[in-house]
């Protein structure tokens, strides 16, 4: 395919032209971060099931050693990022929007950085299933920020069939430059990773989307592609417009196709993967290397030397900040964010570690984005939010209903199609923190749905129990009725046959005889082929019955 010819781009709705602030962190080449004294690895760094630790405190681990895993198909294993001793498995501040702590494996680093022996095989000889299994074993997740387990995505997509592979090198959020520097530094590995994706999917075309504010990355990728051509692969330069790096938006810009509501990209034959993930895939397959490090941008106006570092997962943020020359403002007046300014979240502490999702650490002076949380102005329905919304929602209507907590209306206005890109909040002249309202509404709706689910389940159980009791009662009555009828038929015969016997006396005799028979034997029970255990249980039950009978009489 001719890469120089003009590629026809498509329109995406809304979006914003944001000041990039990328030059700050692109001033120096990629640096290798030194090893921290301690690495803190949250058991869950992906979307899906939480891992279970496979090591205990005191164990010595080597780099690449599996230390936590889950049997769930949607999960990603965790490997030791360097050699050292497990110190503890305990709750620790982690990078999560909730700001809560969660269980982490803490490794005391011994500084030797010893690796497990690699067991690399030639990936070309591997079947698709084996390729995906190896990617799963390496603990790879989407490194663009979504951290969805890559193997799970690959196997589902592979069974659906993929005709277009979209590689995301857009990186549209301000300040972040980790993918830019990755494309400049590791373009060959990215292309090898793409090669393996092509081996898995055999797509008709592969499009590598890069924003036009990264000319060096485009050049380096183009050079790498020219020297190692891949079939039907081209690099497409797209305009710089936030949030064009969202999967849905990038697919729309490159192909003009929308992912239907409630569907995923592979449902329309598309597969989108971030450039960083491609590098991780190539390392996993070429060198049998698990995902134990990533590139992190440190930027913002309150850090001394912004830049990009390749850091081991689990490295405390504070360690990286020190590598970047330290803070420019004191604790009370700076703000620490993981991710970009548009979609990132506040870090609870700089003791929190770098995780698989950490593309950026933003250190800002607090006054740079002074938010007027509670005393914002009222919405004047100017609809600037509607103009920028990439999901084509009506943010001011959503706000109106979210604030009134009329959640049926909120859902009618497609709240769950909101990608929380933050454009609406950024343009709002009344400075309403719109996305915050949507997040709150979403979590309340989810909580209500869960409560509904629980109460539904309880109701079903209750109704089932009622039904069962009623049925039992009916059966009992039916049995009694049959018995009574049978007795009625019997009695006259007996009376006719032996009239000298007093019927009442006879009945009493019968009852007595029955009682004795019951106490004496257990002939009515199925006691053949029982295990000693069962035998014992039966005896216990009989003992209980006897005791109850004695109590009654």
């Amino acid at each position: 395919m001719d890469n120089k010819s003009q590629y026809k781009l498509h329109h995406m709705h809304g979006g914003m032209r944001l000041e990039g602030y990328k030059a700050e962190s692109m001033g120096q080449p990629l640096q290798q971060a030194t090893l921290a004294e301690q690495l803190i690895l949250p058991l869950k760094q992906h979307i899906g099931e939480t891992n279970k630790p496979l090591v205990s405190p005191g164990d010595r681990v080597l780099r690449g050693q599996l230390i936590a895993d889950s049997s769930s198909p949607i999960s990603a294993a965790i490997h030791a990022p360097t050699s050292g001793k497990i110190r503890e498995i305990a709750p620790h501040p982690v990078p999560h929007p909730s700001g809560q702590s969660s269980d982490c494996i803490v490794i005391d680093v011994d500084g030797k950085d010893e690796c497990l022996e690699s067991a690399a095989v030639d990936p070309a000889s591997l079947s698709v299933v084996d390729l995906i299994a190896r990617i799963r074993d390496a603990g790879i997740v989407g490194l663009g920020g979504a951290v969805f387990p890559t193997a799970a995505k690959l196997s589902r997509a592979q069974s659906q069939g993929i005709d277009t592979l979209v590689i995301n090198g857009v990186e549209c959020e301000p300040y972040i430059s980790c993918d830019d520097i990755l494309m400049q530094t590791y373009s060959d590995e990215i292309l090898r990773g793409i090669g393996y994706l092509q081996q898995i999917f055999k797509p008709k075309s592969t499009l590598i989307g890069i924003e036009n504010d990264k000319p060096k990355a485009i050049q380096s990728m183009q050079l790498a592609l020219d020297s190692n051509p891949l079939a039907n692969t081209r690099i497409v330069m797209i305009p710089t417009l936030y949030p064009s790096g969202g999967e849905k938006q990038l697919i729309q810009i490159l192909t003009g196709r929308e992912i239907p509501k409630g569907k995923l990209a592979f449902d329309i034959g598309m597969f989108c993967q971030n450039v960083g993930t491609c590098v991780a895939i190539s390392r996993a397959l070429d060198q049998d290397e698990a995902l134990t490090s990533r590139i992190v941008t440190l930027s913002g106006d309150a850090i001394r030397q912004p830049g990009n570092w390749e850091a081991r997962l689990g490295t405390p943020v504070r360690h990286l900040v020190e590598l970047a020359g330290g803070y420019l403002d004191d604790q009370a007046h700076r703000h620490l964010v993981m991710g970009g300014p548009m979609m990132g979240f506040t870090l609870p502490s700089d003791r929190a570690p770098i995780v698989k999702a950490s593309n950026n650490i933003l250190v800002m002076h607090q006054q740079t984005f002074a938010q007027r949380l509670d005393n914002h102005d009222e919405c004047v329905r100017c609809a600037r939010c509607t103009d920028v919304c990439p999901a084509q929602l009506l943010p001011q209507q959503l706000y109106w209903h979210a604030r009134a907590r009329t959640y049926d209306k909120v859902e009618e206005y497609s709240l769950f199609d909101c990608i929380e890109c933050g454009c609406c909040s950024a343009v709002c002249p009344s400075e309403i923190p719109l996305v915050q309202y949507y997040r709150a509404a979403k979590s309340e709706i989810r909580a209500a749905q869960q409560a509904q689910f629980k109460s539904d389940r309880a109701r079903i159980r209750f109704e089932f129990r009622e039904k069962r009791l009623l049925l039992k009662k009916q059966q009992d009555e039916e049995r009694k009725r049959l018995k009574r009828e049978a007795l009625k038929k019997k009695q006259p015969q007996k009376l006719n046959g032996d009239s000298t016997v007093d019927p009442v006396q006879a009945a009493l005799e019968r009852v007595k005889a029955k009682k004795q028979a019951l106490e004496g034997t257990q002939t009515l029970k199925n006691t053949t082929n029982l295990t000693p255990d069962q035998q014992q249980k039966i005896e216990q039950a009989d003992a209980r019955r006897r005791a109850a009978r004695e109590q009654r009489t």
Partner: protein
Amino acid sequence: MTQVVISSPFVSPSNSLRRLMINVIIGLLPGTLAYVWFFGVGVLINITLAVIFALGFEAAILKLRNKPVKSHLNDYSAVVAAWLFALCLPMHSPWWLVAVGIGFTMIAGKHLYGGLGFNPFNPAMVGYVVLLISFPREMTTWYLPIEISGESIGFFDAIAYAFGLADIQQWDALSSATPLDQFKTLSGQNIPISEIRQSPVFGNFIAFGWEWIAGGWLVGGLWLLYTRTIKWHIPVTVLVSTSFIALVFYLSAPDTIASPLFHLFSGSILIGAFFIATDPVTAATTDKGRVVYGFLIGFLVYVIRSWGGYPDGIAFAVLLANMCVPLIDYYTQPRVYGADTQGKDE
């Protein structure tokens, strides 16, 4: 170290309500200056009185509602509403007329509904319509442009009159119906346009003085578009729909029916299209909805002017269209990304 959890986006705001309101005030300047040039200081006294009363009412009612007074006064929305309201009044209105109108604008039109952002009707138009219906004599006493009457009412005389210290009757000779009013009355008597236009109030082009004022609103409107304070949908559709309907009728009887240009450059279509109909709080919010809303206003203005009881119709047209906004918004929702597609090409 623990920090307060604030959620993204962490960016400084790129717009502010105050900035938008200042843009509107700047946009009002050219037309206002032309107005003062042709009709004298009475216009300025109206605006000043209206702004002072508006801020007073706003502050008082905010205080009653236990809302922060200073930050709300600082958003300038009261100033914009008062300014627009004052521009609807005849020059040389008595102070109490301004006070009653602004009272309705701020209290009934705005705060009784919950304040800025919650009012379904354009507050300035509410105040104006209340006056138009309640005080028809005061509201229809207009004056000739200074150049035609040859005499201007001085600043102190105007102030004296505004506060009831002077009798207006001494200037009766200077009063006159507006060109739009005259045209309506005379064409109602089947007098041909060529004859109607003999009156000096029509000047050489459309309507002496008024055409320049309308031009001023147009310039200000372009400024609003340039600064993206408003979008094009409402003004363009208001102007296009009035002109189109006017053109159809004009072509059917060019001797007795006013031309589209006459409709655009006399009266308040241009200020209505750019400044009044575009009030975001009371207008439709979707692009498609704004087109419908604009067409509706343009249509109603022409209907009211041609067959209604009032010479101009922008206030009633805007209020009627305001009523339709919830319906319009509901039926013009944009298609959400990914809805009703089978992933097909654009």
